[in-house]
């Protein structure tokens, strides 16, 4: 009797250990997978900024339509004007269909890019592009939400230029990240992505 009891305790303990190990392993895998998924879904999120007309806005103001989100600065000689021109050409080609899209140009340089400066700059591009700036901490929060890297690069004679992520985040109408548009992607690729986003037939 005692022997059987001892064995039962041993088997029970082994079973409990096995269950614990399996649960831990399963849990780890589950968390890891979940972590991966969450990471992708994390791109985007709440922000509170000021648009180039001087109006306070949040991410919620742009829900209901897909949104392209591009970060840059106006003291940028290449990537920013090239990207804004590419978007301008795409919007013009889309015509009225582009009204069903938000395009946000968020500065990574709020010190120099005031809403007024953004308004001047954006006057050279499609009027449907909205410029966003704001208090530095709010701009940094938006950069973090969109996983944007930006760094000041000091210049020998004073002042600075900036390194920054040049990818456009494509968000759906619910504010969920769905795609990315990379710098210097072929125009046809960008066009196809925009058509898909707006539910238009293939061009």
């Amino acid at each position: 009797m005692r022997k059987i009891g001892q064995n039962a305790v041993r088997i029970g303990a082994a079973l409990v250990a096995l269950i614990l190990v399996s649960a831990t392993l399963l849990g780890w895998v589950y968390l890891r997978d979940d972590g991966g998924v969450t990471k992708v879904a994390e791109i985007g999120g709440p922000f509170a900024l000021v648009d180039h007309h001087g109006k306070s806005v949040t991410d919620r103001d742009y829900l209901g339509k897909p949104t392209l989100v591009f970060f840059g600065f106006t003291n940028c000689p290449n990537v920013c004007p090239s990207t804004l021109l590419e978007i301008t050409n795409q919007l013009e080609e889309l015509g009225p269909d582009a009204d069903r899209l938000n395009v946000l140009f968020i500065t990574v340089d709020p010190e120099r890019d005031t809403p007024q400066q953004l308004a001047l700059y954006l006057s050279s591009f499609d009027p449907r592009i909205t410029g966003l700036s704001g208090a530095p901490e709010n701009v940094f929060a938006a950069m973090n939400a969109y996983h944007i890297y930006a760094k000041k690069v000091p210049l020998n004679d004073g002042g600075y230029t900036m390194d920054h992520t040049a990818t456009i985040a494509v968000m759906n109408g619910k504010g969920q990240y769905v795609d990315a548009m990379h710098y210097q992607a072929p125009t046809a690729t960008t066009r196809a992505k925009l058509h898909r986003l707006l539910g238009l037939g293939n061009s």
Partner: protein
Amino acid sequence: MYTNTSRLHRFAMSAAILLNMSVVAVAQQFKANSIVIEQPWIRATPGGAKVAGAYMTITNTGSEPDRLIGGVLPQAGRFEIHQMKMDGNVMQMGEVQGGLEIKPGQKIEFNPNGYHVMLMDLREPFKQGDILKGQLRFEKAGAVDIEYRVEGVGAQGPQQHSH
């Protein structure tokens, strides 16, 4: 009569084309010592922009290295030699320290995605079609007067104007 007019017309056309081509060639190439600078151009500036990129091709036809050490454009408060690089999805900008060496026989193409002249503290906007006079300074070839043509805001290279 008809053939004469047509011949004359053709002659005038060829003369005009030749003249046009030679003007373009003169306007787009600048030389000093063994340095040849071709097709300098600047990007037009969006509203309120205080910076612009300037680009050209520089060839060293000599047997000694030379070095681009700076330059002047009256419309810009600062003239710096920068390099743009992509590291994955991140655009990186940086000053080229100590000027840019051009080895014997080397041809360096400045363009929006590589070496470029960073014009800063602009005193006026640059409009497409403008011609701007400036100067490049080399260690050995000295100061070279050049003319930039202003291209569109998002231009990736100089337009061919020989038509």
